[in-house]
């Protein structure tokens, strides 16, 4: 186990400027009330957030509009693929739930034999410097999803805030070069392990969720949902996209664009056939994808418990609460059959 390295709070600015020579350093800034990841700039006041922030981390590796290739009409269809960026990059200040989201995205884009070359290049050139959470927001429930605010899973370098500075530890050979700075001194003390509350939004096993396909609960759950796309766009693991071809003044561009299974246009086909016409079928598809399909496909459920879907839902519908209500329905059904009483006809 490599040792923890200590950084004085005062040296933070110099340390980051030193990193900025060789890497593009991205850090979270507060921009009139809203958070955003932006390149490091000494002039801007920097303060690492102690818990999850409402910003799209997915945007850094899989932008909402990503050009793949450009082509111009005159030269009979010469297609030039977009060349990925090479400059190495550090993303600093990610929390455990963000990094878990990124490792899920890796499975989606890099698992099949058709790897996504652009995403792979982005991942190669990026060093993930994760930060352990110091507190849990009201909406956080990573402890119910097999994660913890102080788990360093999937990070290249982990750091945490202490009274007089920061503690860094490199967890991969990609992260090691970052800690060779003279501002860091090896030390023996370690961040203390805390006991985190859990049990807020518990969910049943993926197999149990799969049996809920024909259940009547989905109409109840989607009665006030307006199926907009906010919860999918803010979710770190919702990476459904559409491939769009665009043309302007004879020059064209092929792009991938974020899409959402909640929108009506998602599965509407030419000729009018639409497999997910009703809001209930769309809410069911997303809930099952999060808690069942992703596990059967990639071995990891695609909800990291960050709670962003709760923060952004305009109707305060709280998507994790749906998972809990379905789990309650599963538990009731199981109790019913175990009591060997004939289950009353559900509504």
């Amino acid at each position, binding site marked *: 186990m490599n040792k923890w390295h200590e950084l004085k709070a005062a040296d933070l600015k110099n340390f980051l400027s030193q990193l900025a020579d060789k890497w593009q350093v991205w850090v979270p800034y507060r921009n009139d009330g809203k958070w955003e990841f932006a390149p490091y700039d000494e002039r801007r006041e920097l303060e690492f957030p102690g818990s999850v922030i409402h910003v799209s981390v997915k945007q850094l590796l899989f932008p909402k509009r990503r050009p793949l290739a450009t082509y111009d009409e005159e030269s009979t269809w010469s297609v030039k693929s977009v060349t990925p960026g090479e400059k190495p990059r550090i993303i600093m200040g990610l929390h455990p739930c963000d990094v878990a989201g990124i490792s899920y995205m890796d499975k989606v884009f890099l698992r099949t034999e058709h790897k996504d070359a652009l995403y792979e290049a982005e991942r190669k050139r990026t060093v993930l410097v994760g930060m352990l959470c110091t507190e849990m927001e009201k909406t956080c429930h990573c402890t119910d999803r097999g994660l913890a605010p102080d788990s360093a899973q999937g990070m290249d370098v982990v750091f945490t805030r202490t009274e007089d500075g920061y503690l860094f530890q490199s967890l991969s050979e990609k992260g090691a070069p970052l800690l060779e700075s003279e501002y860091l001194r090896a030390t023996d003390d370690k961040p203390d392990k805390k006991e985190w509350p859990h049990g807020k939004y518990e969910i049943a096993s993926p197999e149990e969720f799969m049996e809920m396909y024909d259940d009547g609960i989905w109409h109840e759950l989607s009665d*006030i949902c307006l199926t907009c796309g906010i919860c999918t766009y803010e979710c770190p693991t919702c990476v459904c996209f559409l491939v769009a071809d665009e043309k302007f003044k004879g020059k064209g561009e092929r792009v991938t664009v974020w899409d959402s299974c909640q929108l009506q246009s998602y599965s*509407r086909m030419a000729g009018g056939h639409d497999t997910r016409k009703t809001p209930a079928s769309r809410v069911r598809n997303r809930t099952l994808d999060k808690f069942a399909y992703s596990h059967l496909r990639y071995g990891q459920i695609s909800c990291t418990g960050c709670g962003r879907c709760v923060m952004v839902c305009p109707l305060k519908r709280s998507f994790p609460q749906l998972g809990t209500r379905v789990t309650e329905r599963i538990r009731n059904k199981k109790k019913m059959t175990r009591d060997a009483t004939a289950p009353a006809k559900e509504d």
Partner: protein
Amino acid sequence: MNEIRKKIRSLFDKGEIDVMLGFREDPSTGEVKAAVFKKDDDLNGFVYDDRCVQNLVNYLPTLTARYKRIGIMLKGCDGRSLVTQLVEHRINKNQIVALSAACDGVKVRGEEVEKCADCAVSVSPIADHVFGEPKEKKDPVYARVREIEKMTPAERWKFFSDYFAKCERCYACRQICPSCYCEICIADQQEPKWIEPSAKLSANTMWHLIRAYHLAGRCADCGECERVCPQDIPMRLLNNALEKAVHEMFKVRPGTVPDELPPLVVLSKDDPDTIMEGKDE
């Protein structure tokens, strides 16, 4: 609040409504959520206070398909959307029982929402049962709109293009709006493809322009589109600018007069030509 609950209970008992559309407080998060109350639900969970910001009129079409008679709790601005939906025959009145309480402003996270300062109508124009004294009507000032109008065109485009570039096209503004209910939205149409699906400045500009235009003379200024937008794009600004223009040109404030057709649906032979030549500014 209890007065409203008693009225709802009596409506249920007399069989005048099958379901009541209102708000319920979620004990675990302390947030107020839209909720559909059935006959035998416990009405103590029914909440109506300054946290009930959402415009419930958008649920009526799906509910009128499922139930025969629906009660709905309306603020003044919600009432204006109900007028628009009734006048456009999206739902019919005999399925609706409208309850409206004099609203003196709603709050989001504690501070009063900006639309309430300009509130044109505090009780729904269509209401079967009214609670409390409606406040006198104030003509809206459109303070923010006049500020923007003072800027030069280049400054205005810079102001709006910065916002339009941030749009992710999650269409929450379309899904929450009671007056935005096309079967296949123009943004999803392929033939002709007026608006490209990708979230870039030009396609976003097309989306926000056509969204605002399609609401001209139909928008109830309930401010939900601006509230739900994850990127805080000032959509109400566009709606208000058009509401101000429609009022100046056609002397109509959408949704405030029951059975009044939206201005762009009707025509009048004596509109002055100057309105389209832009000379009257």
